[in-house]
């Protein structure tokens, strides 16, 4: 490790202003801080620099998704061999899934970070860490058989139009990972949605539709059991199937204080509320589906834990977080049940509420000002 530090120190002058590679300063800086805790200290004012800087925060999220990622890899293999009626051991399943998912992760990071570095050089700012998380979230929310070039286009679109045009990490309106998925969804619908999305190796004899795809066409009789859906032995996007492991990851995020429990809780509350309303109406079979079953289907839990809680695109005010989360939950179920074109409502619900998050904050802040003004006036009157 010392040798690495020495090597970096030796190279550093080349990247400083006036050095040989002056233009690549931010790339160097990014690598250095990736490997070592930066030695920068605040020069003036009463700022407290937390030991947990943005890179460490991001690392916590990555640790949080690792269980579902590993399980997702296994599940890809499991579903694949299941379609042939085979049941090989855990390792075979896992290795097959690894072979499918690893290229997706490499493409996601390669393209995304490439663009981030490029923009950092052109705009002369530091390379931001945001993409470290986005890059791992994208492979988790796409189907495992997604063509890699489509993924590359979607990642490029998400990073450029979802993030860089707004000014980079921390300035984006939309969650970049979901922007990538939305792009895939609208640009290449054949590979992304519908009942045929998850056909293992295009075997005609096996229609491996996701539970959502089946629910959409009213096919409820060979629906997977709640147990399978909760633990994730179902076809679906890589990281979304196992609600159990997602919740464990979520718990980790809550303990480390990275994600907001208010948002998580209210997303589930909103989803349940909408589900119950539909149960009361009960006009068709989809509406009669128990509300709690919605929580373990599709990407609901994944969205609630890892997507809705994104600190940049969610509501910032304490009260606003409740409204924001609750509306996401409600809209997700509403879109699922009512709109046949969109089997999964979670993505669209979160993106829509991303747009409204600043408005919610604005209303909360304004109403607070009004309330306090009223109180001040009353005190004056007395």
């Amino acid at each position, binding site marked *: 490790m010392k040798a690495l530090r020495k090597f970096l120190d030796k190279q550093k002058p080349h990247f400083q202003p006036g050095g040989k590679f002056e233009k690549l300063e931010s790339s160097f800086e990014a690598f250095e801080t990736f490997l070592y805790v930066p030695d920068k200290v605040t020069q003036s004012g009463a700022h407290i620099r937390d030991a947990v800087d943005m890179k460490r925060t991001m690392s916590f999220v990555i640790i949080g998704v690792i269980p579902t990622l590993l399980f997702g890899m296994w599940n890809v293999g499991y579903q694949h061999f299941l379609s042939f009626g085979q049941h090989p051991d855990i390792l075979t399943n896992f290795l097959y899934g690894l072979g499918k998912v690893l290229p997706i992760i490499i493409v996601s990071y390669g393209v995304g970070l490439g663009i981030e570095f490029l923009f950092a050089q052109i705009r002369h700012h530091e390379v931001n860490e945001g993409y470290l998380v986005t890059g791992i979230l994208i492979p988790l929310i796409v189907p495992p058989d997604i063509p890699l*070039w489509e993924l590359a286009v979607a990642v490029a679109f998400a990073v450029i139009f979802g993030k860089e*045009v707004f000014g980079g990490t921390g300035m984006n309106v939309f969650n970049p990972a979901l922007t990538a998925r939305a792009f895939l969804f609208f640009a*290449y*619908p054949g590979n992304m949605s519908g009942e045929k999305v998850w056909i293992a190796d295009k075997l005609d004899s096996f229609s491996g539709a996701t539970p959502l795809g089946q629910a959409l066409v009213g096919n409820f009789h060979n629906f997977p059991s709640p147990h399978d859906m909760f633990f994730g032995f179902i076809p679906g996007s890589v990281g979304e199937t196992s609600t159990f492991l997602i919740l464990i990851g979520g718990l980790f995020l809550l303990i480390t204080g990275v994600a907001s429990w208010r948002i998580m809780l209210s997303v589930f509350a909103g989803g349940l509320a909408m589900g119950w309303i539909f149960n009361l109406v009960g006009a068709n079979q989809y509406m009669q589906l128990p509300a709690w079953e919605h929580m373990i289907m599709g990407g609901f839990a994944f969205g609630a834990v890892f997507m809705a809680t994104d600190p940049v695109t969610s509501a910032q005010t304490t009260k606003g977080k409740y409204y924001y989360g609750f509306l996401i939950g409600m809209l997700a179920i509403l879109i699922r049940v009512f709109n046949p074109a969109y089997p999964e409502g979670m993505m669209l619900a979160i993106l829509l509420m991303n747009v409204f998050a600043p408005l919610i904050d604005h209303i909360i802040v304004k109403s607070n000002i009004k309330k306090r003004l009223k109180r001040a006036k009353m005190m004056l009157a007395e």
Partner: protein
Amino acid sequence: MQTEKTEREALFSPKNIKLLTGPLNMNNPITVQVLGICSALAVTAKLKPAIVMSLAVMVVTGFSNLVVSFLRNGIPPRIRIIVQLVVVATLVILVDQLLKAFVFDVSKQLSVFVGLIITNCIIMGRLEAFAMANKPWPAFLDGIGNGLGYGLILITVAFFRELFGSGTLFNYQVIPQSLYNAGYVNNGMMILPPMALITVGVIIWVQRYYNRSLIEK
């Protein structure tokens, strides 16, 4: 008011040429003034309708500018918008009938958007800002210039949308079949209106990258 000139100005004097070329770049109606966006989104999924639409708008801007400029001293200021609209509407109906007569299929595709040229902000903007205060010939050039600027953006957007959205140009397949066999798929989002907006955004981005003076502070 125009200052009286002792000698006649040449038809294509530098000033008049500028009226024609200005809207192509530095004063583009779509990317700089941000007018006429709605139709730019609606008709640019394919090149052919975009070109026909551009021609239609160019004819209407050019001739409505010309006619209104002739009438400019006779129009009572209070009802000027009504008079302008009558002129524009007449021209639009003429254009619409011509399209129906000669390019019926494209006219069908453009459907309501030909009629909606009447409400195109570029036309009213040019009438109010230019034709009401200038002589017929410069006004005509200004109208044609703005039509060209509008068309330039429309055709650029349509080019990219048709190429990536349908894999064709003028309905001829340009992306080779071998690429499709290798797994290439047309980008369905390019056909949807949001992508037109994003494409226009990219054009604005590129334009401002080269013309820094256009960047708003």
